[in-house]
């Protein structure tokens, strides 16, 4: 696969909270940096935080089912604690979660992973259980962002640039939750592989991806 010649410019922001408006933030922090043809990438967790989707575990009362089911995902998984599983049950519904569990069990029998999220819903994979990162949200459970497609469209309207919302980790996995164009998905997947958002307290949830002209043509 050919590598896209592009550069990433992480922008250090304040600690984003539920008081912030992600569209205004994207506009304000990228002003003077973003140019025509660039892509604005935003970390999914901060989009969720601005949507009041960061929840303190003590505010969740996990039921018996959540307490039981949370024993099965790997201990480094997203749903390893009862409150996170309880929130997953509320997001996807009990039936979908149970069907996901059946699929996961069958997957284990044949040595395949990922069946749970395939059946229960991809959005559950974006739940971040107590992650220990991004103070003061290090002890929150952060759900995936709500209607990310609408958010990227609104930011594009405000800034004129293509926009992606991405979930990136330090093991070079890039998941694009929403994008304003198919070309930007392709470019962002390569550009964000080294996680310029950071996975600690770097406070760089907004990244401007500058793409060389020939790469844009190729992606299109």
């Amino acid at each position, binding site marked *: 696969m050919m590598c896209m010649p592009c550069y990433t410019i992480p922008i250090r*922001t304040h600690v984003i909270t539920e008081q912030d408006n992600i569209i205004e933030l994207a506009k304000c922090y990228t002003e003077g*940096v973003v140019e025509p043809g660039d892509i604005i990438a935003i970390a999914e967790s901060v989009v969720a935080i601005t949507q009041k989707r960061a929840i303190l575990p003590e505010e969740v009362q996990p039921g018996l089912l959540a307490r039981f089911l949370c024993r099965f995902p790997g201990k480094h998984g997203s749903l390893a604690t009862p409150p996170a599983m309880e929130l997953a049950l509320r997001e996807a519904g009990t039936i979908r979660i149970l069907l996901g569990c059946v699929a996961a069990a069958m997957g284990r029998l044949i040595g395949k992973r990922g069946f749970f999220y395939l059946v229960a819903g991809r959005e559950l994979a974006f739940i971040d259980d*107590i992650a220990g990162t991004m103070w003061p949200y290090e002890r929150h459970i952060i759900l995936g962002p709500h209607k990310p497609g609408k958010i990227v469209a609104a930011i594009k309207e405000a800034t004129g640039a293509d926009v992606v919302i991405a979930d990136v980790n330090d093991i070079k996995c890039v998941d694009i939750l929403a994008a304003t164009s198919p070309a930007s998905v392709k470019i962002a997947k390569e550009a964000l592989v080294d996680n310029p958002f950071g996975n600690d307290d770097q406070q760089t949830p907004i990244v401007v991806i500058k793409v060389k002209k020939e790469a844009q043509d190729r992606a299109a």
Partner: protein
Amino acid sequence: MTASRITNLWSKVHYNPNRPVSRVVVESTTPFQFDAKESPSGITLIAQGARANMYCETIEVYDGLIEWIKVEEHAEGVVFDIKLNHPSPWRISCEQGIPHRTVISFVRDHLLTLFAKKVIFIDPGHGGNDPGGKGPVDLLEKDVTMIMATALQDLLKPLTDQVYLTRTQDYPLSQWMRCNLAVKMNAHIFISFHTHHSHDAAIQGTAVKYNPAAPGCASLARFTLEEIVRKIKRPSRGIEPDPQLRHLGLIPGLTVEPVAISNWVEEGLLRNPTLYRKIAQGIFNGLLRFWGEKKG
């Protein structure tokens, strides 16, 4: 001409062979003219004519040399005040690219002097058939203490070649044997890692216990506690004497409990690799204050 936009600032310790440096990196859209001057407590860098896209605030570093960096936007440009805890030679270099990087490097030689020839024993608590506490999900104390110990060893290794672990594999050791290893090697310090474990899952936070037989050890415990709390931002559970460390005699010794594994929020924090580096840096800063004060 459009103004250079300052987009990001970060700091990291860079381990050149035999000469570690603290690097402060200012990222911008284009190069900028700068002016740098020394102040009694550090240096001030002015990015002339630049504008800040990054958020201007005081950024805590606490890497053993750089305390914090204050970023402010003024009419003449963006001003970076870098506060050091020790005078240090510095130099500025530029790295072309997108983003453009202006790098201020501070030599950490005084740390080499302070840690040279120090014999440091690090003890990962529990092991083998003694797992210690267990988290509400499933982390085991014996495993997380090993990660803590290794993180501290990695941080100290570039400064002294006499850093030892009491155990490197998963096997049990009595408290007497652990302390005896340190005594035999005439250790300057003994640091034992544990996590708090309680039936009360609400208990959380950091505690440091100390060898009551070693002179000044309470100060060491207090410094270490303050520095760990500053790095990992958990509540303090205070310091107290640990009678089990009496086996060390006059050797300063600490039992560090950075978090409570039985609190499932803190068990969640233990899944994040960054936490271990922060705990190690907190202990490092505590040692620095302790030995720095003794030297001073």
